[in-house]
């Protein structure tokens, strides 16, 4: 293949964060009008690579060629000027601005000295119609649903008339119908010659939309394959580096355990409706559903982090009151949030301080903290969870996602919970840490601690749980067990639609 055919090429890209190498000599070329899939486990380096392509990060070494010209991307603004745009994974929308104001943010159309609001509104609503979205462009962003926000984010990137368009896991928050609209749009753009990079870890999506796929694992380029030459299992094997079946420990079935937690008719106005479920001792109970189905909200309500309008909580058959998080901790409940950095750990605290944040009373000697005891306990957790840190006194912001997560888990384990709720516990962490966390959840359950696992990664739910509640639009739509725990059944209950896309 002739090299001049590439519209963008990254060559020998290396990226290090405080001397941890997250990308190692990655070279990829993408042809004009091609949709290149970029796949890899969390922590494989997908996001880092595309952030380098749009100038948000700078590579430690390596070059980026645009139409064969080496170019220097010092920030996103200069990348935009060269025709590179990104639909980010996390929303960059300003909640108190309207849809059209967000779409044109930083790219406003002027009429003389002033903003040409009429033209911007018109263009924005044309774009939204093209995306089959019936959203008023004068609506505030805060009023939109997650999927609608995603579409606004897409429109924002499209407005830039980019030559190279990057989609960073755009489908995680979309329903199947919306994914289809997005894919149609991508096909249309492709026919106009736009080059696209589509990041995902959903195999069937890659298979559906991409021409070729680049597979990353642990920061290294594993393969670039023509999509027709490889099947989903092949991609998965290259992505994980081993077969799926080895990732998960054997399942634990606890159909006869005592009921430890019972929730009856939990309601939050406009958010949750008649949530009732139960949890057995030593069970791993799954909670599946689309993003925004109310799983996190349910758990937050149980933990006293959200006000309930009604609902009973029983532990060991006895009704208890939980109005604030302190009540939940007293009743031996633990909750590991999906938002590790925003709600989980204190970034500027070291390991011992994070570990003892909830359980600090255990380390008190009179009025003061017994720091020696605290440090020793932290050492225990570092050994137990295999936390990699050059010093336990290092601030957590320098840690990788996986190690941060392990510290976060230590923090809750230190409260000796009997019920542990894990909300997306493997989000943003590398494959090995993931497997360690699966094994940890498994060993917890074996030791008689009851776990609730919320996950949007289907394999996790299927691989770990003996019983799964599926939520849809603030309600529990079904409880499935045994062989019924499969991708199709979960999707059906989560969306009400049969089959995959």
């Amino acid at each position: 293949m002739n090299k001049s055919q590439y519209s963008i090429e990254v060559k020998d890209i290396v990226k290090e964060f405080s001397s941890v190498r997250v990308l190692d000599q990655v070279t990829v070329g993408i042809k004009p009008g091609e949709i290149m899939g970029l796949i890899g486990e969390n922590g494989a380096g997908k996001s880092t690579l595309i952030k380098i392509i749009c100038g948000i990060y700078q590579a430690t070494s390596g070059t980026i060629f645009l139409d064969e010209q080496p170019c220097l991307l010092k920030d996103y603004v200069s990348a935009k000027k060269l025709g590179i745009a990104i639909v980010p994974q996390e929303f960059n929308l300003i909640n108190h601005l309207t849809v059209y104001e967000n779409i044109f943010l930083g790219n406003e159309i002027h009429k003389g000295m002033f903003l040409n609001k009429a033209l911007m509104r018109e263009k924005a609503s044309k774009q939204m119609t093209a995306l089959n979205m019936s959203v008023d462009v004068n609506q505030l962003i805060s009023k939109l649903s997650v999927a609608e926000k995603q579409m606004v984010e897409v429109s924002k990137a499209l407005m830039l008339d980019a030559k190279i368009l990057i989609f960073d896991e755009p489908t995680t928050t979309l329903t199947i119908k919306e994914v289809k609209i997005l894919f149609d749009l991508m096909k249309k753009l492709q026919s106009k010659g736009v080059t696209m990079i589509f990041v995902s870890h959903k195999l069937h999506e890659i298979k559906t939309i991409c021409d070729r796929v680049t597979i990353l694992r642990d920061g290294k380029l594993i393969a670039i394959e023509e999509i027709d030459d490889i099947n989903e299992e092949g991609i998965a094997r290259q992505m994980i580096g081993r077969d799926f079946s080895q990732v998960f420990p054997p399942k634990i079935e606890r159909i006869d355990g005592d009921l430890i937690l019972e929730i009856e008719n939990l309601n939050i106005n406009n958010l949750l409706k008649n949530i009732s479920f139960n949890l057995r001792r030593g069970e791993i109970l799954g909670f599946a559903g689309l993003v925004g189905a109310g799983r996190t909200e349910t758990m937050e309500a149980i933990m006293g982090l959200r006000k309930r309008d009604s609902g009973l909580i029983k532990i060991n058959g006895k009704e208890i009151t939980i109005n604030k998080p302190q009540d939940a901790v007293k009743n031996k409940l633990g909750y590991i949030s999906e938002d590790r950095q925003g709600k989980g750990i204190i970034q500027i605290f070291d390991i011992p301080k994070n570990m003892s944040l909830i359980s600090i009373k255990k380390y008190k000697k009179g009025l003061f903290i017994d720091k020696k005891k605290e440090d020793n306990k932290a050492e225990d957790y570092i050994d137990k969870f295999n936390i990699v840190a050059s010093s336990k006194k290092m601030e957590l912001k320098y840690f990788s996602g996986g190690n941060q997560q392990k510290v976060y888990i230590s923090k809750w384990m230190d409260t000796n919970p009997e019920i542990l709720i894990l909300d997306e516990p493997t989000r943003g962490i590398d494959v090995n840490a993931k497997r360690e966390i699966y094994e940890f959840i498994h060993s917890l359950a074996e030791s008689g601690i009851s776990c609730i696992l919320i996950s949007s990664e289907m394999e996790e739910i299927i691989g770990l749980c003996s019983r799964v509640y599926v939520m849809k639009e603030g309600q529990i739509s079904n409880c499935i067990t045994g062989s019924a725990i499969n991708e199709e059944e979960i999707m059906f209950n989560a969306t009400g639609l049969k089959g995959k896309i």
Partner: protein
Amino acid sequence: MSGQKEIISYFKKFKLKDHAIGIAFVILFFVAIIVGWPNFIKIRNLTNILRQVSYTGIIALGMTLVIISGGIDLSVGSMTVFTGGVSIYFLNTFGPNSILGIVMTIIFSILFGGLCGFFNGIMIAKFRIAPFIVTLGTMSIFRSLIQYFSNAGNILSVNTIYGKIGMASFFGIPLPVWIFGIVAFLLHILLTNTSIGRYICAVGSNEQVANYSAIKVNFIKLIPYVITGLTVGLAAMLWTSRLNCINPSDCAGYEMDAIAAVVIGGTLMSGGKGSIIGTVLGAIMLGIINNMLVLGGISPFLQPAVKGFVIIIAVLLQYNNEKK
């Protein structure tokens, strides 16, 4: 062998920025000796500097906790004069020679300051108003009230002994300096060795994480303001007993000195991290700078300008350090 390794690893880990305040202090001190030769290094001058910085220094100690908790307290200057004035009225009810009156006034003054701080804290923690706004409001309220009570004139104490407290010295070191040291020691222990100190840092760093960690966020946010109120009460007592009177226009700009000391001491303006020892050094450094300006015959009107520059530079250095 291992000892040698430890020494090497110590020097490898030794980062200039971790000790920036200490180093800056030493440099400044030597510069002051040279520039201010021979007057600066005289014991009398040094104790004088310490005495001068201790009033706002004591307040800066409380302010350190407020800033670590993610807040700010602009009302401390007005609060000092308000507390000082009210305590003189209180003292005067006891008659001219009452020792009991003095003891009661000391307690009253500290508690009254605590109460003012409690008011700030409740508004911020319970009613969730921005600290900047609440304390900007009370800054105006406290000053206005004491001006009204005194008709904007001097508030004189009728007690003849009270004035001796503020001028007292032990082992050649003035009383306010002793108190500055003792309060610094206590708050340092509170910050580094108690769960309350730990919680204040956690809340200041990330309130959400603190809430999700079952910390009583509202209660923890209230504490630093109350402590600042108590330190203000102490400073007010020391200030009024020094002159045995107070003028309602006194203590203006105390908030500036206190915040400056905290910032120079390396406490993050964004909250979560800070040090009491840093604040002590920061306060003394400000005093040394002022002293150099005086010894150098620079117009007193320019002194606040220098202070302003020092704050901005300190924050600038902090910000650049954070980025790296």
